Structures are given as structure tokens and as C-alpha cells.
């Protein structure tokens, strides 16, 4: 408890009097004020919806979350002598200053200059050759979730692929298995920092013959940014940029089927979640089964958990989707579906 000083007493004494004197406050009109530069003329939210001021420079960042939603990298496809499909990918790790929130430049580490890294997509049983070139000044790796030999694990101590030095490169080679929605990330010590700085991405393995066709497939990678390096996230988002899909709602039509590949790579916080408004969805944990495990409107994922969400909207309207850790939502992990007839 704070010790009272003479001044504290004076304050308290004075306040009694102020109360006795009936000190009233009168609200005054809000003075007109200049808007910050670089401000975006998107919908002027009435009331008190949280949100950032302005818009990040997507062109300068080199990626746009709206495009990341549907940007699948199937690699360079060829057929091996035995008939197996070969997919070759090139990924380069680079340091890049990214405007993660309007006005705030974060010294990120990226795969291919974007956060999340490219969504690598293939089919169960394909031979994958992923070449990581390290264009940064730190050692990095790509550690994939899925079946593969130890030397392909991208973890220090597992051979040359376990630490790709600056200027070096390594080709990870393995067969895609099991089908589902997975992820990859850097696995260099200190791991939390290497992940939090932006070295992660979605890795989708389709079942042979594919999943049932839908009208829309989206990738959503949930993460956050600790911009002041205190090991606590300051901002949260899907596909890196906070409030992006609130400012730029995802257009849908009534009745259209939607499949979301949802991945959580959030560092520092224990849990993340996804909640869909005015709707329910089928949930396929890790996407490793064709049969949904749950019919719900909220799922929870710890770091590296992921799953597939399938739904369609019955009615037109603007519908939120967001982390139901409300704090995360109000710090950026929130978005909108704009459903029309």
C-alpha cells in the first residue's frame, strides 16, 4: 500500500471540498482535428469499433493478405521415372522491414519476403523437393510437420539441413504424407524469436483424389507481432496484418461453400481460437480425416495446431470472424465476411 504523504493528505482534503462544492464537469464539443497522414478512406466505422489508423503499404510490404487467402504454391511439377509426381519449390529466407501495422515498421524475417511464407500445396504421395536459400544474415531452416527422414527435419543437429547458414542452401526432400493441413517454420535457436519474427507458413497436403470441391478455399494463418520485443504480442492477426479483413471484408454469396485451412503459429500466447458469427462449421482437426470431428462455431488451437473449417452462409449480411480470445480480436485478429445474395 502506498504511504500517504502530506501532499496526499492535501489531495484528499481538497477533494472532499471539491465534492462539497459540487464541482461539476460539463462535456465540451469535440474539436475538429487533423487526420493522420497516410489515412485510408475505407469505411468510417461508427461508434467504437477497435481498429488501426491508416492502411499499411501492401505494395512496399510485397504482399497483400487478401491475395494470400487464395495464393497456393503448387511448385514446379514434373513426373519422376517411376510415375511419382515431383514438386519442386524454391524458398528464400530474407530479412525484411514490414509495415505490420500502419506506421510501424517491424524488422521481420521472412520466407520469400512475405508473412506468412508461401502456402505450399501438394497431394499425398508426391515427391517434394523444397530448396531453402538463406539470403539473410542468420542461420535458418524449414522444419515441416509430417512424415520425413530425420535428416530432412530442419532441426539443428540433423545434418546440413538442420542449420542453413547465411548464403547457403539446402534441399529438403520427402514424400508428402499424411494428407491434411500442416505447417512449416524455422527451427533455429532461439526458436520463439525465429518464429515470432515471421518464419512460418501453411503446408497443405491434399488427399489422393482431392477433397470435395467447394466454391472458395482460403488459407488463414493466425499469428501475432511483438513489436517492442518484450516477449508479449502487441498485435494479432490472420495472415499477418491486423484488422485487414475488417477493413477489407471477404466477399461471399449466400449458399457458397467455403473451406478454410486454419493454422495457428502464434508465439508467446498459449492459445488461439477462431469463431464464426451467425453460423456453424464442420471442423476437421489437422485435416487428416474426411469426416468432420465437430459441428461448432468456435475452435481452439494451441501453437502448431491446425484444422479445416467448412461452412456456407444462409443469409446475406456482414459477419465477423475473429479470435474468441477477445483481447486478440481487439488487438487485430478480427475480420468480416461480406455475404450478398
Amino acid at each position, binding site marked *: 500500500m502506498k504511504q*500517504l*504523504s*502530506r*501532499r*496526499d*493528505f*492535501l*489531495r*484528499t*482534503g*481538497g*477533494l*472532499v*471540498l*471539491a*465534492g*462539497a*462544492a*459540487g*464541482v*461539476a*464537469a*460539463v*462535456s*465540451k464539443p*469535440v*474539436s475538429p*482535428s*487533423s*487526420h*493522420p*497522414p497516410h489515412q485510408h478512406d475505407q469505411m468510417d*466505422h461508427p461508434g*467504437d469499433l*477497435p*481498429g*488501426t*489508423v491508416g492502411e499499411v503499404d501492401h505494395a512496399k510490404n510485397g504482399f497483400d493478405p487478401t491475395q494470400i487467402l487464395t495464393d497456393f504454391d503448387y511448385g514446379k511439377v514434373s513426373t519422376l521415372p517411376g510415375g511419382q509426381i515431383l514438386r519442386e519449390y524454391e524458398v528464400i529466407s530474407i530479412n525484411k522491414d514490414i509495415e505490420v*501495422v*500502419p*506506421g*510501424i*515498421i*517491424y524488422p521481420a524475417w521472412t520466407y520469400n519476403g512475405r508473412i506468412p511464407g508461401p502456402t505450399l500445396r501438394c497431394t499425398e504421395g508426391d515427391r517434394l523437393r523444397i530448396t531453402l536459400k538463406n539470403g539473410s544474415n542468420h542461420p535458418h531452416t524449414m522444419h515441416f510437420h509430417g512424415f520425413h527422414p530425420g535428416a530432412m527435419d530442419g532441426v539443428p543437429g540433423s545434418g546440413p539441413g538442420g542449420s542453413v547458414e547465411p548464403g547457403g542452401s539446402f534441399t529438403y526432400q520427402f514424400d508428402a504424407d499424411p494428407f491434411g493441413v500442416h505447417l512449416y517454420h524455422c527451427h533455429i535457436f532461439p526458436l520463439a524469436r525465429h518464429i515470432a519474427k515471421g518464419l512460418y507458413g501453411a503446408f497443405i497436403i491434399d488427399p489422393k483424389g482431392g477433397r470435395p470441391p467447394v466454391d472458395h478455399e482460403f488459407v488463414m494463418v493466425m499469428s501475432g507481432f511483438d*513489436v*517492442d520485443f518484450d516477449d508479449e504480442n*502487441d*498485435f494479432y492477426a490472420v495472415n499477418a496484418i*491486423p*484488422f485487414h479483413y475488417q477493413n477489407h471484408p471477404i466477399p461471399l454469396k449466400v449458399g457458397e461453400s467455403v473451406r478454410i485451412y486454419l493454422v495457428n503459429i502464434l508465439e508467446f500466447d498459449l492459445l488461439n481460437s477462431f469463431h464464426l458469427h451467425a453460423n456453424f462449421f464442420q471442423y476437421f482437426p489437422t485435416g487428416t480425416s474426411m469426416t468432420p470431428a465437430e459441428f461448432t462455431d468456435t475452435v481452439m488451437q494451441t501453437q502448431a495446431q491446425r484444422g479445416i473449417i467448412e461452412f456456407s452462409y444462409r443469409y446475406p449480411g456482414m459477419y465477423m470472424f475473429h479470435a474468441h480470445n477477445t*483481447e486478440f480480436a*481487439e*488487438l*487485430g485478429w478480427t475480420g468480416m465476411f461480406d455475404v450478398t445474395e
Partner: protein
Amino acid sequence: MTKINKPSNRFSLRTLILFLVPIILLAGVIALFLSTGGGLNLTPAAPVEELTVERYVLDRGSIELHVRNTGPQELTVAQIVINSAVVRYTIEPSTTIPRLGYAEIHLNYPWTYAEAYTITIFTSNSIPFEVEIPVAFETPDPSASTFWGFTLIGLFVGVIPVFLGIFWFPALRQLGRQAMTFLMAATAGLLVFLGLDTLAEALEVAGELPSVFQGIGMIGIGAVTTFLLLDAISRQQTQVTGDEATRRLSIAMMISIGIGLHNLGEGLAIGAAYNIGEIALGTFLVVGFIIQNITEGLGIIAPVLRDRPGIGKLALMGIIGGGPAIIGAWIGGFSPSPFLAVLFLAIGTGAIAEVVYEIAKLIKKDIEKQSMPYAVFSGVLTGMLLLWVTGLMIK
């Protein structure tokens, strides 16, 4: 060193050049340093930024932050988070604030009465600056009723106690010479106590000031120069009049100025505290406060007990001693400034110290005329204990 050159008082061209040589050399060194860096690598890994929230104003559905860039270079406000929610803001005059520049940030936020808020301002370099609102309530506006409210506060804590003390004048006039000297010593004791309190408060507020304002240095400037200025004024008056009674009256006047400055500091603190919602504890404390400050009035009249100052003079001294509490409450309540607070408190410290010095000179004269070995000791002790004991009641 036997040969002594008689210095010439004439200001020759040669003297001028000799004066200018170091300055020209200095300019050269600075130019060299700016162009080469002087061999030092002075580029910091991260920019050094400092943003001071000088004041916040809560209005219905909105929060206004008055911020000053107290860092070494300009900074740009990027985003603002209140209690784990990113909020939209507007800022005047610009998101980029120059060094020592000032800006007002406006937030539309549905704050709730009596709840606590933490606001984080992120600059473009991802450096967070936090301001805490411990208890949210509408900041008083300078309306007629709040003005009157702060006036009442000042009246109760400053004017009324000082005048109550002065009302002892007729009774104390009946006392003998020795008792009067004792009272003077008691006044000195009171003032030493108040002076320490004022200095402590000045140091405390100085600690809250952004380092660029050099609070401790300001206390030195304010206190030392005030002491010397009052000393000079007092010497000048002695030279002009030489009359003992006039001199005692002027000391009484200076005591009231010193106490007035002390009360100005108290008013500032009260007003500022009201502004940020420090909670009231009870009327008992106010009563205790009045009792304690009565002694201030007593101190003012002690030097002139043997004279016949007019009622007008006494009233004037009462107003000078107590009135500043009202002014302080206004300033603290409507435009609190830690910078001004430190300055006033420093001036108060210097003034009180000088007045103690003057009283000591008066007492010395009295003691020379008549022996009273323990009057000073017991008087000063009584004065200090008086404040200490009444202080016990109110803490």
C-alpha cells in the same frame, strides 16, 4: 612571478581577437566533428525516443492526451492501444512531433466511470509509451462552478487558516518580550519544517519531470536565486530606512510571501490531484488541515507583535500568505504543469530559507539585549513539533 603587468581597461581590437580565438576554434571543432563524427560511432541500434504524457482529459466518450516529445529527436505516433484494444485516434497538429514539440491526441473511447485504463502509444519505431489513468472520471472544465469549487478549496486550505492565526494578534500583544522572542523562534521552527516539506515536494515532482527539463537544476536555480534576491531586497530596505519597526514589518511581509509560495505549491498539488481523481477520504482530514495551517498565520505576525501594524497591513499579509492556495488550485486544477510546480516549489524553498535567516537575525538582536538561554531552542523545537504533531492527526 615578480613582474606584474598593469592591466589596461581599454578594450582593444587585440583583446577582442583574443576573446574570439577559443570561439573560432570551437566552431572549427564542431564543424570537424559534425562532418567526420570524430572517429566515434554514434549511430544507435535503436532510435532513442521519449514521449511524455503531460496531461489527460476525460470527456464523455472520449480521452484526450496532451503529449510532449522530450527525446533527442523527432518522433512519429503510429498506433494507440487502450487496455488491450487498438483504437482509432486523431492527432493535432501532426503525427510527427518535433523535439520538445507538443501534440494533442484525441481518442473516441467509451470509458467507464471509476475504472482504470492503461493507454499505450506506439511510435513508428515500435517504442511503446504508457500512461495510466488510475480512476476514470470526467475532467473538470473551467466553468463557473468548478472555478468556485477550486476557490473554496483554496479558501479552506490557505486563506481561512492563515487569517485564523492572524486573529491571535491582539492576544499575543499582551505577552512579554521573552515570550515574543520565543514565538519568533517557534515561527522559525515552523518555517524550517515547511521549508523541508516544500523542498521534499519539489524534489519529488522534479523526479517526475522529463529529464530534459533538469528538475533538480531548476530547484537550485529557483531556490538559490530567490534566497539571494530576497536577501538583497532586505539589505536595501535596511539601508533606506534603518527603522527597526519597518524592518520587522518587512520581515513579516516576507514571511507571508514565503508561506504564500508554500501554499501556492499546496494549491497546485490539490488541483492537480483533483484533476486525476485521487479519492477523498473524509472531512476529518480537512479539519486537521485547518488546525495545522493556523500556525502559518501565527508565524506571519510573530515579528510585528511589539509594533502597531494597521489592520490593512495585517489583512494584506493574510491574503499574501493564504491567497496563493486559491491560485494554485486553479492552475493545478485546470492546467496542471509539473514544470511550473517545481519552479514554484523551488521559489518557495528559497523564500522560506531566506525568511528563516531574517528571523534568526532579529532573534539574535533580541538575545543580545536580554539573556534567555533556552528561548530559541525551545521555540524552534515547539514550532517544529507543532507541525509534526498536527501532522500526525492528518496522516
